[in-house]
């Protein structure tokens, strides 16, 4: 079966510093794949390479078997890649509804319409309202985003990615910074993501990783250190030594 997402010998250097060193990943469709590693292991760099924010020094990236190494970030989105950011990247002065209509409209190819009003795009509006409802954002959808509580903003962050109907979704620490009382809401959403979406989770929180993922890759110092099922990784003494030990 063609992997949903694949990297082949990915390398990224900044000057003399090698931050991603020969990383080859293969993620099957529908997987719940976690990418873990101590601080500075190069997790965020990998995400940035995957989404096209950075260009790799060498190696290839494939989505559904198609080479996207040279594609621009927005072209990758069109191929089915979506991501959330570790720190919210929202449109502060738009309402969640507007942000969502924008995302849905872009997917539908309505983004270049410059004569028909936003409101007349009933398809996008309906779908946007629908997703917002699912993400428990319907009651705040007409308020400016900047005023929303952090937990709600975090939900919107994920909802915007989901609105693109991605094949591969990269979640960069989805629960980071969410206050304890809102946490379960975010986690429930993450757990309930549609099963046909391939999810790559970058996470620090081991409880979340173990409860969510079916497969785990461990990064250390830019290299792929270990890969296996949850059970294998949690038993691996070396992983414990270099990672779990450090993290504790």
């Amino acid at each position: 079966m063609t992997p949903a997402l694949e990297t082949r010998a990915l390398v990224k250097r900044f000057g003399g510093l090698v931050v991603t060193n020969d990383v080859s990943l293969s993620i099957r469709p529908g997987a719940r794949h976690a990418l873990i590693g101590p601080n500075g292991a190069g997790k965020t760099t990998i995400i940035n390479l995957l989404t096209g924010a950075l260009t790799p020094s060498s190696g290839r990236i494939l989505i559904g078997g198609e080479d996207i190494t040279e594609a621009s970030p927005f072209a990758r989105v069109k191929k089915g890649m979506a991501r959330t950011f570790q720190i919210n990247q929202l449109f502060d002065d738009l309402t969640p509804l507007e942000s969502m209509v924008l995302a849905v409209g872009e997917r539908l190819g309505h983004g270049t319409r410059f004569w028909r009003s936003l409101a007349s795009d009933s398809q996008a509006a309906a779908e946007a309202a629908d997703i917002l409802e699912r993400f428990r954002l319907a009651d705040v959808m007409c308020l400016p985003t900047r005023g929303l509580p952090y937990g709600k903003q975090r939900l919107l962050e994920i909802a915007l990615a989901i609105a693109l109907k991605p094949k591969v979704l990269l979640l960069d620490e989805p629960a980071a910074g969410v206050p304890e009382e809102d946490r379960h809401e975010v986690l429930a959403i993450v757990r309930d993501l549609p099963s046909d979406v391939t999810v790559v989770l970058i996470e620090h929180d081991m409880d979340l990783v173990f409860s969510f993922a079916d497969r785990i890759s461990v990064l250390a110092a830019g290299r792929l250190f270990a890969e296996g099922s949850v059970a294998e990784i949690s038993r691996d003494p070396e992983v414990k030594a270099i990672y779990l030990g450090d993290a504790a």
Partner: protein
Amino acid sequence: MSPLPRQALASAFLRRKARWKPLEYGFWILALGAAFALPSQQLLLSEIAILALFAMSLDLIVGYAGILSLGHAAFFGVGAYAAGLLSLHLTAEPLTGLILSGAIAGLLGLATSYLVLRGSDLTKLMTTFGVSMLISEAANQAAWLTGGADGLSGILIDPIAGLFEFDLFGQTGYLYCLTVLFAALVIARRIVHAPFGLSLKAIKRNSRRAAMLGISPNRRIVVIYTLSAVYAGFAGALLTQTTSFVSPDVLAFHRSADVLLVLVLGGVGYLYGGVIGAVIFTVLRAWLSVVTPQYWMFWIGLVLVALVLVGRDRINPARLTAWVRTKTGRAAPSAAPLAKEEA
């Protein structure tokens, strides 16, 4: 098929946001009324309308596409020269001249838009500036076409559509400028309230996220930059047609700087900023240059410095009305109909 209540609510909200506000109606009624209530001020009013259109065109790129330009006069000037040359060599009918001049300025905008896609704020500032200086120099050198440093004179403008003649008091001129301004605003308003306009805002506010929504910024910036150039060309053409003269300073640096100031005075990113700024700036300058002909520049400078130090947002008229309304207890979303912050 009755939609779910959520969806109906969503559509209703979007419609409300794009709807004309009472303040807007009020503004246009006042502007039209001024044509009859202030017979001795028609020239100043025309100047305001032209400057407002010019500033609005700048708002399209500064406020919506996030490109800081210090050379917008290039398009204004090209529009002005085009209108002058068209009336001398092709047709003196103003509407035809206006549309063609806008198109010519738009072509220049299209050609130069590729230069502002890359680089930092400063790079864009300097590129736009460089382009406008080149054009200004070209106009100066091509004296056989443009009259060089003496400008284009001897321009005669026919009555508009063969009916309305330009009079000495400038009333026709003002009504003409006002109509063009209004039409331009209606079109711009539609565009910024359409998905295209929303995506521009998204690119400007957060380009990383915009890219991750699959928005490719470059083509859209090219489109809005071109449109902005067309508008600036219109403004330039209006100046030529109402004054029957083109001087080389339509391309001068100070015009680019002035229009940026005007836009900022009125507030960036909600279309009316340029209009309000034009009113404030022109009235202030007209008043100061009568009170103190030699030193009005000092006071304009002082206003600018104070404006920035106090914080533009706090003075921004749109902000103010929004603020007043929140204070009077109306709900937040409807209370900030026009206010948009730029980064």
